[in-house]
């Protein structure tokens, strides 16, 4: 019987590992669709940012209460995983609480800490479900945000409920295990005198006092299997879910922008044309951000700006996979606040959805497959792009330094420079700058006329 459980466990573990590896390869391939850009500069500053913003969750604490609650889930996730190590080894080796005899003095303390965190995670998940579905925090509501219907809404509920169930399984497993130990049933008796009652689960023991030994073993095993298989299933699920931020959040912050938020990235391929047209010596070619991995300039210039995900930079695509759809960006967006169609969160979700669509194409038609759709128009409309004030509130709001504005600007560049599709009044502004050196139709020779009034008493 033991050996059957071990075999099942090893098979489940191997299958999960294999499947997740496949998923990682696919997602990584999707991210590498983006244009190359070197983001390994300033390693010290990047590391510092990652420690502060990702590990320290600095920006989550802009709302201290939510910050603390999210930190509980985060810490719970990280630390309870230490216990998962023992569970996995038990599963593979057919042992029961493998570590307990070796670290007997601290074992109950450790499990106590895990149990406190488990209760914390459970409580916060309930609160988060309430915020979403009962208190109805605005940024999560489909009535207000069209990107939050169907799958994204279900996804959020699935994750929170799954975490609650996993924590219940963990706590009741400990409780039922303690009761079996007390009764001295089979191998459970071996823990007598080594493992005492645990901090929280001791209070759950009364739930099991009326269970027969067989029923209790049944519950203990079920809870143990539900917990560990649940974790494996959750790990697979995460790769399809908005919840992928638990993994990608860290590299995403590490590779995030270090420049001032107001600085828009230069296009060196245009500088060359500008210098040529002004009869100046061409000076570009040294910009490291535009060179590929070998330090070479790309051989051919792609399109100006971005029409589809391939035209964006890889970091934009990693941003899309890291987004957990919390909507802080959208809640801070002046366009969205005043009822315009633009939602920075939708920009990120659209980018990921487009990548997922391309992956589906790969599956059925091979990696060379190209469909006739694009991020621009099929997902993101001109009306959305044209509503952006480039105020960077979305960039500032994102707890993991995602930059929706960068995508918006690249799509705008494509519309303006490749398709000449700027709104008419922008075209007028462009021609004024070109002809009158100002965005308005004033004569450049009148530019200094203001100085005539400097001595007029107001």
């Amino acid at each position: 019987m033991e050996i059957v459980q071990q075999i099942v466990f090893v098979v489940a573990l191997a299958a999960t590992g294999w499947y997740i590896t496949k998923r990682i390869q696919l997602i990584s391939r999707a991210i590498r669709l983006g244009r190359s850009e070197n983001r390994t500069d300033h390693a010290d500053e990047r590391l510092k940012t990652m420690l502060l913003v990702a590990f320290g969750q600095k920006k989550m604490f802009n709302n201290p209460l939510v910050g603390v609650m999210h930190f509980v889930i985060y810490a719970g996730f990280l630390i309870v995983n230490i216990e998962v190590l023992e569970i996995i080894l038990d599963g593979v080796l057919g042992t029961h609480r493998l570590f307990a005899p070796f670290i007997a003095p601290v074992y109950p303390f450790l499990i106590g800490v895990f149990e406190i965190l488990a209760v914390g995670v459970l409580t916060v998940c309930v609160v988060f479900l309430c915020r979403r579905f009962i208190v109805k925090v605005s940024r999560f509501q489909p009535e207000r945000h069209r990107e939050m219907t169907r799958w994204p809404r279900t996804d959020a509920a699935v994750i929170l409920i799954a975490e609650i169930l996993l924590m219940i399984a963990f706590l009741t497993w400990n409780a039922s295990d303690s009761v079996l130990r007390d009764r001295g049933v089979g191998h459970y008796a071996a823990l007598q005198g080594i493992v005492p009652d645990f901090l929280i689960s001791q209070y759950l023991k009364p739930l099991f006092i009326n269970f027969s030994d067989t029923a209790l073993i049944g519950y203990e095993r079920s809870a143990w299997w539900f917990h560990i298989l649940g974790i494996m299933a959750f790990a697979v699920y995460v790769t399809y879910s908005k919840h992928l931020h638990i993994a990608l959040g860290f590299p995403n912050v590490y590779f995030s922008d270090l420049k001032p938020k107001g600085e828009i990235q230069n296009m060196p391929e245009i500088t060359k044309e500008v210098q040529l047209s002004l009869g100046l010596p061409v000076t570009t070619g040294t910009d490291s951000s535009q060179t590929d991995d070998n330090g070479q300039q790309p051989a051919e210039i792609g399109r100006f700006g971005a029409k589809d995900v391939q035209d964006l930079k890889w970091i934009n695509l990693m941003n899309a996979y890291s987004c957990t759809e919390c909507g802080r960006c959208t809640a801070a967006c002046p366009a969205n606040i005043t009822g315009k169609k633009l939602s920075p969160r939708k920009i990120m979700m659209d980018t990921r959805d487009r990548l997922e669509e391309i992956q589906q194409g790969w599956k059925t038609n091979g990696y060379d497959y190209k469909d006739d759709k694009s991020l621009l128009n099929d997902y993101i409309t001109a009306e959305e792009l044209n509503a952006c004030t480039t105020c960077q509130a979305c960039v500032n709001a994102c707890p993991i330094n995602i930059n929706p504005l960068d995508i918006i600007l690249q799509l705008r560049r494509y519309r303006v420079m490749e398709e000449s599709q700027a709104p008419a009044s922008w075209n007028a502004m462009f021609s004024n700058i070109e002809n009158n050196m100002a965005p308005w139709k004033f004569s450049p020779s009148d530019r200094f006329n203001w100085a005539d009034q400097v001595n007029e008493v107001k």
Partner: protein
Amino acid sequence: MPTETNYKVPTMADMAAAGEEPEILFWVGCAGSFDDRYKRVTIAFVRILNHVGIKFAVLGTEESCTGDPARRAGNEFLFQMQAVSNIQVLNGYNVKKIVTACPHCFNTLKNEYPELGGTYEVIHHSQFLQSLINEGRIKVKDGQSFKGRKITFHDSCYLGRANKVYEAPRDVLEALDADLVEMKRVKANGLCCGAGGGQYFKEPESGKKDVNVERTEEALGTGADTIAVACPFCMTMMSDGVKNKNREDSVRVYDIAELIAQKEGL
């Protein structure tokens, strides 16, 4: 009001002809040059520069749009045409230090010109005024009294979030001895006036409300009688917002340089 009416506005060309170099170039910007309302800010700032005796110059007719609205609207080619030409002019005059009253010019000159060959020390007029106050070169004289008046400051995105200049304009306002009241969304969380990213030059997309009205309502909610701004676009948007709310009789929108000029009696 002042009897002194001998304010001077030297140009770089004049200075170069006289073999001189100014301490600082005042980059006026398009709004500061052409917009009737913002010309008053330019004049107020020039009067302050004269008053404290700083050796400054402007480019006059040699100045040209930095290209900020073109770049943000997506016209990178036009932006770079403007930038590269401007850098030719600035480098030609060996400009080292620039002050400007426009956060958009400030951001572009400071952050976006270096990669195209134009590297200068660029400061916003709020920072410049702050240092003048700190150095005691602007002394808080009698001028107009601000005692008991409520002022709220509206952060410009390209000064605040873009470049993290939050305290300089507030320090300048503190010097007025007025009552500085803050809106709910300030500093890094400040709400845009609605003009950035080329919005100033087009009709807003359809929605429930205009951004400037949303922001003006918040500003009016503080009970301030003066909305202080530090950006020409914010100036227009907030002034329009106040008009939209029919409060132009009781609430005024001023640039921080105008308030200092009033205080100084300039």
